[in-house]
């Protein structure tokens, strides 16, 4: 009966690896799993933010082409009459806020990827084909 790796895949005899899983290895595996979960969250959030920023950008463009009359600004569940200047100001503040959040997410993604690459190197080095760290 052959050994199996972490994905339940059967290994050939020379792919087997005798390295015992030590507690520090387990901790590294757990950390890798955590980072991977967080990576997916970060990517989903940053995608959402990018879409939101595009929408605000569209709104700003529309405002720039406006004729100086009042516009309706949507806050919460209601619409408010507002001047074009106020609306533009509102849009700018929103862009700034969301852009800052997006920048934070982007740098977090970079850090996660770097740490994951490091962990991958260590874990593959120790366990070879007995471990599978790739996305299914």
């Amino acid at each position, binding site marked *: *009966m*052959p*050994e*199996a*790796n*972490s994905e*339940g895949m059967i290994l050939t005899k020379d792919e087997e690896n005798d390295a015992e*899983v030590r*507690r520090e290895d*387990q901790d590294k*595996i*757990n950390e890798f*799993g*955590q980072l991977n*979960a967080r990576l997916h969250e970060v990517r989903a959030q940053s995608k959402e933010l990018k879409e939101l920023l595009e929408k605000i950008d569209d709104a700003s463009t529309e405002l720039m082409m406006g004729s100086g009359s009042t516009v*309706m600004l949507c*806050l*919460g*569940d*209601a*619409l*408010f*009459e507002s001047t074009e200047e106020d609306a533009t100001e509102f849009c700018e503040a929103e862009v700034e806020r969301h852009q800052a959040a997006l920048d934070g997410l982007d740098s977090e993604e970079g850090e996660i990827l770097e740490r994951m690459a490091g962990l991958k190197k260590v874990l593959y080095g120790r366990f070879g084909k007995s471990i599978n760290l790739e996305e299914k």
Partner: protein
Amino acid sequence: MSDDAPIANISLESITEGSNPRGIPHTKFIEDIESFANSFNPPASPELLIGAYSDLYSKFKQYESQLSLKRANFEAKLPEIEKSIKLVQHLKSKKEADENVITRYNLADMIYAKAEVDCSQGIVNLWLGANVMLEYSYDEALDLLISKETLAKKEFGEITEDLTFTRNQIITSEVNISRIYNWDVRRKRSAAASS
């Protein structure tokens, strides 16, 4: 919980150690499988051990999906509070500028009505749930909403922490299962070689 048939003589306590602040058990990491199996009386078979950890694994999996759901609820709730805060802030700034607000508000589905809000009154009504609505001044409303937001953020953080913790336990259980399996393979192989 520990009385399930396949783990008749392996209690939950023997495959977990301690728990996190909110009582989620911590999967025991097996240092040495051989001595772990022999720590039971009679020594636990690999099948029994794998069964016990699979059981634990599915319990964690179930808990994980519960937590994910809870977390998604909070994720939807937080922007709602944030929206309310923004609206009250807008009203407050209008009051300070001595202006009135002209709004189109949602009267019923697909119907918006026009209203002029006298901001100088400085009054806003907050829907508290359970069919209750209360009148607040702008500052009181902001205080209330911000404290609600802080609380929701704190709970959201705790759930996220629990979720991470639970996922770690899932991974540890999985690794334990495959280690026990491979240990059994090696053991049987060396038994066959020496006979």
